[in-house]
């Protein structure tokens, strides 16, 4: 029961159906990869998991440790331990990272967090990411480079310590050094109390975050599953090969 479960999920935006019966399970303690070509619905799935009100869920369910979170608001989902690292983190001018992180941590824990406790946590996270303290006094994502934004998402991940994280193309637009740093952050979270779904278009990230399972999504459905070797196969053969196979099976 300790798992993030997506059960026959159908969802649409502006009348267009994007997800067409997604079934996927990420057990706690494992890191899974979600791969697929552009437009497959991967990012949509990530946003729907986090409760983006832009999308309408038409059918199916999302269960966090056996409990449906479909009717919960995004903040309630977050407080239950779900985290989405955004593909495009949003700028919030005038709000420092430190201030925001502490508010978020307090919301997550449901209690006041003292300066010392907060500081200890943040310092540890900064070390993992090899990041400078001065970032804490910068405004949330404002004027950040793509890489800095992604790093900031992982900083939040490390400080908030969710039970489940969805990383939406955290690797996109990163050079290899930044990629390694992000991977280090996710790997630091790995353990029996953490499950993650790493959404990526390319295999590259999976060299550094080795997944327990790989799911492949096409046209709003999971069409293939396998071990880490599946990612390598996709890298070698491309998605067309899989698309043909899916057609044949149908």
């Amino acid at each position, binding site marked *: 029961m300790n798992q993030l479960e997506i059960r026959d999920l159908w969802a649409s935006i502006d009348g267009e159906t994007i997800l067409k019966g997604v079934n996927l399970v990420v057990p706690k303690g494992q890191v899974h990869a979600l791969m697929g070509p552009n437009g497959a619905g991967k990012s949509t799935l990530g946003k729907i998991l*986090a*409760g*983006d*009100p*832009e999308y309408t869920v038409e059918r199916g369910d999302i269960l966090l440790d056996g409990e449906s979170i479909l009717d919960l*608001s*995004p*903040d309630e*989902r*977050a*407080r239950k331990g779900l*985290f*989405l690292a*955004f593909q495009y*983190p*949003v*700028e*919030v*001018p*005038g*709000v420092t990272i430190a201030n*925001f992180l502490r*508010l*978020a941590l307090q*919301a*997550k824990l449901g209690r006041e967090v003292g300066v010392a406790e907060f500081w200890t946590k943040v310092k540890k996270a900064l070390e993992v990411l090899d990041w400078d303290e001065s970032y804490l006094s910068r*405004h*949330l994502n404002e004027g950040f480079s793509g890489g800095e934004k992604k790093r900031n998402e992982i900083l*939040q991940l490390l400080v*908030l310590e969710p039970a489940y994280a969805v990383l939406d193309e955290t690797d996109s637009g990163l050079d290899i050094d930044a990629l390694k740093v992000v991977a280090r952050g996710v790997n630091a979270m790995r353990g029996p109390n953490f499950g993650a779904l790493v959404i990526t278009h390319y295999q590259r990230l999976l060299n550094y975050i080795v997944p327990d399972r790989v799911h492949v999504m096409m046209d709003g459905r999971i069409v293939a599953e396998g071990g880490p070797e599946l990612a390598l196969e996709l890298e070698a053969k491309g998605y067309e090969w899989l698309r043909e196979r899916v057609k044949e099976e149908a």
Partner: protein
Amino acid sequence: MSEADLRALGEEYKYHFVDEVKPVFVAERGLTRRVIEAISYHKGEPEWMLKFRLRALEIFQKKPMPTWGPDLSGLDLDNLVYYVKPAEVRDAKSWEQIPEEIRRTYERLGIPEAERKVLAGVGAQYDSEMVYHRVREELERQGVIFVAIEEGMKKYEDLFKEYFAKVVPPEDNKFAALNSAAWSGGSFVYIPPGVKVELPLQAYFRVNTPEFGQFERTLIIVDEGAEVHYIEGCTAPMYSTESLHTGVIEIVVKRGARSRYTTIQNWSTNMYNLVTQRALVYGDAFHEWLDGNLGSKVTMKYPSSYLLEPGARTEILSIAFAKTGQHQDTGAKIILGTPHTSGTIVSKSISKGEGRASYRGLVKVLDGAKHAKANVECDALLIDPESRTDTYPYIEIEEDSAHVGHEATVSKINDEQIFYLQSRGLKEDEAAALIVRGFIEPIAKELPLEYAVELNRLIELEMEGSVG
């Protein structure tokens, strides 16, 4: 602070609500010669002041109501009480007598104790408090005058007369005339040449704090090379049964001096808040206005700086928050009168519900003010689809070598920001409040910490239940 604590405080402290204080004298309704004479008599004023008041009354009666701004048709000037002389502070009022809404806000704001006392009108009590006592002693040692305006008029008559109504004469506008006729309460401040007052002067340091002024009048003179930061008012909602607050603030910043006037006001929502604030800034001097307007029904307030000699500079920062039923018509004026003067206006407004926030500003560069520079930035944030903002930027340039920039932005709280913050565990209204706090941060960071904290809390209260 729990409600029980506050209730305990309430036993000791008396609040300044006009209807709850047994007054010694209440003037008849409307502003008449008789009322003015009565005010002057009760204050024991010199003859010249009575004459001044009566002259102002005539001007007030002649001037029409301004029609270029917000709707003032709900303001019945003939039906107001213009003067109430309160009784001595004696009988404690119970906490329960304070309107529930205001009590709750005090509580949740965690108003600094000293300020709570001011709100409670217990001026006399903190004479005994060592910290304030020491501050006052230090000020006196430096020759700083910081007293109630009535005391300033009597004790320092020559100095007072030299500047009083010179910055804002009664002819300036109808409400300046009204204030000039009926003024009561406020501060008189004089900083001698070269004296740098380190701590901000806050109204609650003032000795013998008089009654809360419906028509408060403050005169601040910062002599050559002196420095001061004056803070007026507070962020707790000030409640009054009378629906008009008309203040006049006059500031003289002499050569090489620096001054800052900070005020954050949160009037009850029945209030017309019509204030004239003006500073005369001399050579190489610098004056800042930091102005926050929350609450009230209508606010008309445009802090002004007149840059009179070369090298004079000014900065005007303002925040306005308008909710349903409120019109905040605020802004700033800078007159650049001589060469090498410069000024900056930063105005941030937030409109929520059907609230309306207007920026109204004037930058005027006079002929011959060579290389004068001014920059205006006004940003509006709209919370709801029905919220409204307007910008009325008047720019008059008579000098070719002047540089004047103007930038205006209107933004909405965007759903992506809300979703992002929510996905980190913040509730929807907390997320919106955080975005608003971020929006005003460039101004809030200029406030002394306790005021910044208070302002943030206040914004959170204002934003509660605002979305979803």
